[in-house]
């Protein structure tokens, strides 16, 4: 029946339009690189955008700093620069002084190091563009994750292969929960949970089925808490 065909066509077109719209929205959400800004000149390293990993996917930083060079080629430990990453709730950026610890000597003539010295001499802080951030209502504790032996690359990707840092992971709530919901593997924690359950379960309200196995905090069967208050308060 022609009317049926027409109906099918219109449904199809509407669907396509919807998909296009969704694609457009996602396209708009991607970081828009300021490609025209700052192509680095006069360094002995190749800074050809075509060969730089991550170019265009992350913001252009005030100083061209390559994690591939530092963490990859020279195999520097992440915690050497981000020294609070395992201590504090914030990973934080290294002080300028730390960079100059090496770069007073190493490649001191390079244009980028000159910029660095410029900041130091002017007493200015380097206004790094922020790549990873959480909303104000997310109480993310960086140190706790490092201490729990979450590998850096699980969230930041293989930065040792990236010249330009970009937001590698979506950092959405569902993405966080993917890890948190994995089963707990730490024997000690499982034992502690069982002990508590034996201790409090009988006096607790388990019989009501209030707290099933899947709800848990650090003391339970999941690798991370899925309790809202673990991150939101």
């Amino acid at each position, binding site marked *: 029946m022609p009317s049926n065909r027409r109906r099918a066509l219109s449904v199809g077109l509407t669907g396509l339009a919807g998909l296009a719209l969704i694609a457009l929205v996602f396209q708009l959400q991607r970081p828009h690189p300021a490609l025209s800004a700052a192509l680095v000149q006069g360094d002995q390293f190749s800074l050809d955008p075509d060969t730089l990993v991550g170019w265009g996917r992350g913001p252009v930083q005030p100083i061209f700093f390559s994690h591939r060079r530092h963490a990859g080629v020279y195999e520097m430990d992440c915690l050497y620069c981000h020294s609070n990453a395992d201590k504090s709730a914030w990973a934080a950026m290294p002080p300028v002084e730390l960079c100059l610890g090496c770069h007073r000597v190493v490649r001191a003539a390079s244009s980028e190091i000159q910029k660095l010295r410029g900041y130091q001499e002017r007493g200015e802080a380097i206004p790094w563009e922020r790549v990873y951030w959480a909303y104000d209502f997310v109480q993310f504790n960086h140190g706790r994750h490092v201490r729990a032996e979450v590998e850096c690359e699980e969230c930041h990707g293989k930065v040792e292969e990236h010249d330009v840092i970009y937001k590698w992971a*979506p950092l*959405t*709530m*569902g*993405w966080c929960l993917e890890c948190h919901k994995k089963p707990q593997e730490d024997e000690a924690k499982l034992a502690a949970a069982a002990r508590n359950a034996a201790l409090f379960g009988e006096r607790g309200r388990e019989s009501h089925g209030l707290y099933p196995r899947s709800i848990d905090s650090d003391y339970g069967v999941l690798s991370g808490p899925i309790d809202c208050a673990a991150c939101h308060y």
Partner: protein
Amino acid sequence: MATVSPPARTSFGRVSRDIIGALWEPDWRYRVMMLVLIAVLGWAGYAWVYQIKVGMGTAGITHPVMWGVYITNFVFWVGIAHSGTLISAILYLLRSGWRTTINRAAEAMTIFAVMTAGLFPLIHLGRVWYFYFLAPYPNQRLLWPNFRSPLIWDFFAISTYFTISLLFWYSGLIPDLATIRDRMKGLTGRMARFKERAYGLLSLGWQGSDSQWRNYRRAYLYMAAIATPLVLSVHSVVSWDFAMAITPGWHSTIFAPYFVAGAIFSGIAMVITLSVPFRWALGLEDYITEYHYDNMGKLLLLTSLIVGYAYVAEYFMAWYSGDPVEWESFAWRATGDYAGPFAIMMTCNVLIPLLCFSRKIRRNITAIFIISLFVNIGMWYERFVIIVSALAHEFEPAAWGLYKPTWVELSITAGSFAWFLFWFMLFAKTLPAISITEVKESMAEGVWSPGDKKEDS
């Protein structure tokens, strides 16, 4: 564009022509009225935007009275929405003859009232821009709404009610739309062609064959059958917004039947309030007659008595329970800072409708119109009293407080009436405001025919 279709050959034909004839070409009064409504709507829209931008604090709601006029309006409009489906569904199942001329308008009223009511949960949200958190849909947060919350019940009940009412109303419209489409065939001109096409599309290709009728009537019957418990459930769910709380003055088992009765009460009143000017403006005096008002008056009286009984029963329970908190709440309701609204509610909902015991008053259209106005006011105040006075005096005496609406709330309230009337007026000029088919059915069954006032009934 006047009606130039051929004159009626039969009484059926006259019905078609009378009812369709009311649709065309609004006069200047209609246009002015629409402009006024749009202006009020615009002002209310501004008030809402202002409230969103500045914060809920622009409304008078406060601690401890966190719900005020908005929820009052919500319950009021949901209540109004109840008569339509009641008249069409329940009375359809009960085969009440007098429903035929008012059910279409009442159903339309239902839909517009739900559309109005549905705005208030949004308007009262602190962060309306996150309203979609209430909807159950898969999302990246892996979170779903809390289906234990009466507000989610509300979300489901109201959206179901809206959908079913809309479909029910629309189903009822299909044969009438086909009638209009076919009436247009006899006319010339671009407008007639446009209308033929438009109503043709809307009528979905109805042609009135017996097999169509059989499926249609079966579907209509089922929808009426399921709409009936739905009507009862929706206002029960709305009442549970309150009754599920532990707040003294809310936490009561009689709330569901009490609210349902109240809803029907206010709905009938609104039907009367609207139909009186409407039958006059559209020249449908023959179709909605004293006979209908007589019956609606009876229903008004019945529901008023139920509501009055509920008021008394609430007080009795509060007193008999011996719960000091409950009793204090009720005593304060009648004597405290909200004694005024309480008195209005009692007078308008319990005392004034008693006049409907008189057949003379029921059949006096002016009188019943005035009574219905009082009932509308009284029912609005009933919700106000229930919501505000209960919240103002709860368990913790140290946290007692008072509430007074602000201009924002009053503007939005006015806007809700404008919004409702806007749609109703649009409806009155675009769709048959009286069911052509059902009037014909009544006539065929010999139950009632246009112009009949049934003086002897």
